């Protein structure tokens, strides 16, 4: 940690160009660019169309929402493994409540959505409270919470999916509608990203979170409450995951009690860590996460459009993540 410095001017002083610094900052974006070029050459008539670009964004929108939330708690230095279960939670309970209420009106739908997000935030705050007040490992606490949440969803649902016939149109429109030709999930993703970017970079709470992630004890001695910010961060993370699951549910027109969030859990971590090797090596940030999410989307879409067997998607994704980690680490390693 004590090694990140090279104040702006230093690189210029040296003879020649500082490739390592350059790569560790831009490597991820360059590989994103290279992949896009590659796929565009491979299938120009398909890949490089506005429609496919929107398609890629739409495909990653839910992953993106979950990854954005995860970014916040990683900024504070907390791992949240409950996001998978929380996504399932959000999707299932929104659908279930709406089915129980049987109301069609947009206001009821909005209220139910808010209620589900608030409920998720409360669960996130419970995570934050256990982690901060008892000082227990976030990784394991959230893992435990995901077991509990999975059990509760299965218990409440009896394993049964809530189907579209019971779900009001005003809800499914969230996942299936478009505004000005842009699918709603993309719009939600962009709004969420913008809001969280402003939050992290331009508000006091966001700056305090970076401080806590950098040096928790020094932050406490500066009057910043770890508990308070852990609560907020975990609440945001849980709500974002629930929002992702909810949009997924709206897209599917179904409230599934299982198998919604698990798919996104690992990919969200991949995206956020790829992001932490982008532009600001070693730092979690929203723009980086957005790049990571896009990279995953482009890999999966591009390989699929090129007709490459799907197991390659796993290999390429894992490989790019390893490369991203290596490039982010170069800066640090060469100093010792």
């Amino acid at each position, binding site marked *: 940690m004590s090694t990140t410095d090279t104040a702006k001017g230093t690189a210029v002083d040296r003879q020649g160009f500082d490739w390592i610094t350059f790569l560790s900052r831009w490597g991820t974006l360059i590989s994103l660019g290279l992949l896009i070029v590659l796929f565009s050459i491979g299938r120009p008539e398909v890949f490089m169309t506005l429609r496919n670009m929107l*398609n890629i964004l739409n495909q990653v929108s839910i992953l993106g929402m979950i990854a954005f939330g995860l970014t916040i708690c990683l900024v504070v230095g907390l791992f949240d493994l409950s996001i998978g279960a929380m996504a399932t939670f959000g999707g299932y309970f929104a659908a279930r409540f709406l089915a129980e209420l049987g109301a069609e009106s947009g206001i009821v739908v909005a209220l139910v959505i808010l209620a589900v997000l608030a409920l998720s935030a409360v669960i996130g705050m419970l995570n934050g409270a256990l982690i901060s007040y008892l000082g227990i490992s976030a990784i394991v606490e959230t893992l435990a919470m995901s077991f509990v949440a999975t059990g509760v969803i299965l218990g409440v649902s009896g394993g049964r999916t809530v189907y579209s016939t019971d779900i009001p149109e005003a809800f499914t429109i969230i996942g299936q509608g478009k505004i000005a030709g842009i699918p709603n999930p993309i719009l939600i993703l962009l709004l969420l990203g913008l809001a969280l970017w402003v939050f992290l970079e331009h508000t006091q709470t966001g700056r305090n979170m970076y401080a806590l992630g950098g040096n928790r004890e020094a932050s406490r001695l500066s009057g910043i409450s770890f508990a308070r910010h852990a609560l907020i961060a975990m609440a945001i993370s849980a709500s974002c995951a629930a929002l992702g699951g909810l949009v997924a549910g709206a*897209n599917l*027109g179904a409230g599934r009690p299982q*198998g919604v969030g*698990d798919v996104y859990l690992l990919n969200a971590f991949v995206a956020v860590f790829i992001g932490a090797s982008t532009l600001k090596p070693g730092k979690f940030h929203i723009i980086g996460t957005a790049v990571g999410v896009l990279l995953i989307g482009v890999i*999966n879409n591009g390989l*699929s459009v090129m007709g490459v067997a799907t197991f390659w998607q796993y290999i390429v994704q894992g490989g790019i993540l390893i490369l991203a980690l290596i490039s982010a680490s170069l800066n640090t390693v060469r100093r010792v």
Partner: protein
Amino acid sequence: KLGVVAVNYNSPSIQLQADSGIARAKDLGWEVELFDGQGDQVATNNAAMAFIDRGFDAILNVASANTQMSGVIRYAQENEVPFVSTFSGLVPGITADIGSNNTADGVIAATELAGRIQGTGHVAALNWNVLPALIERQRGFEAVMVGFPGIEVTNIEIKVPGQVDDAYAQTTNLLLANDDLKAIWVGWDELAAPVARAIEQAGKADEVFVVSQDGIPEVLELVRQGGPVELTVAYNVKRMGVVAVDVIADALDGKMPSSSLLTLRPCLVTEATAPAKGQPLDFDTCGLFSGEGVGTN
């Protein structure tokens, strides 16, 4: 141009359906693109929408629940693109689903089971009540059981993922806790092997038998060997892909199928009718009722 989407292409039986369909389409000289959702239903839906946007002539959905594709189906309808699915359930708006009547097949399997224990005794049902097809099968099973007050049923929900190991552990526990167990009904073939293993391990291979549905090669072989797995209701997954493509071809010619649920004849596989090792099941000759197996022998 045909767009094929599968929510999880890595599952062997889904792969079989998709591959046979794709081969058929290529025979017809079509251009085919496949999308594998890797378990992500939302991505699968988006891919199908993208196919429609890109002007594909038809969508073939391989085993992703149609109930979760209502948006895609509506969009296909709006764009007048035939939407045919295999094994994905009947919902309004699709051109056709090529599959089987899971409820009816559940009834067949359960009736066979009840017959073998003469309508009395303790049986267990292992299932995962999340997938629509599996729920339908269980419905068929339960409908039969209502008619047999002498049969006591223990229902067990299997944990997914981890279904294979969980089925093994749960069966072991069941056998320990219930000495009177006579038979186990499992919702799908993936559970048959671990359940059979647990029965053998408990030394109850002669007392407890297993009834299943799907007819994957592994279970056909288990049935042939005469172990605890006594029967499975086998589906002609390979033909589903072919039929689906044929239905699409007709639909593109303006000939809509007679019904939007096209069920293929399943096949009851018992020790007597199981194919030789490594051989596929011959759906043209196999019977749907256990008596037919006796008859042809």
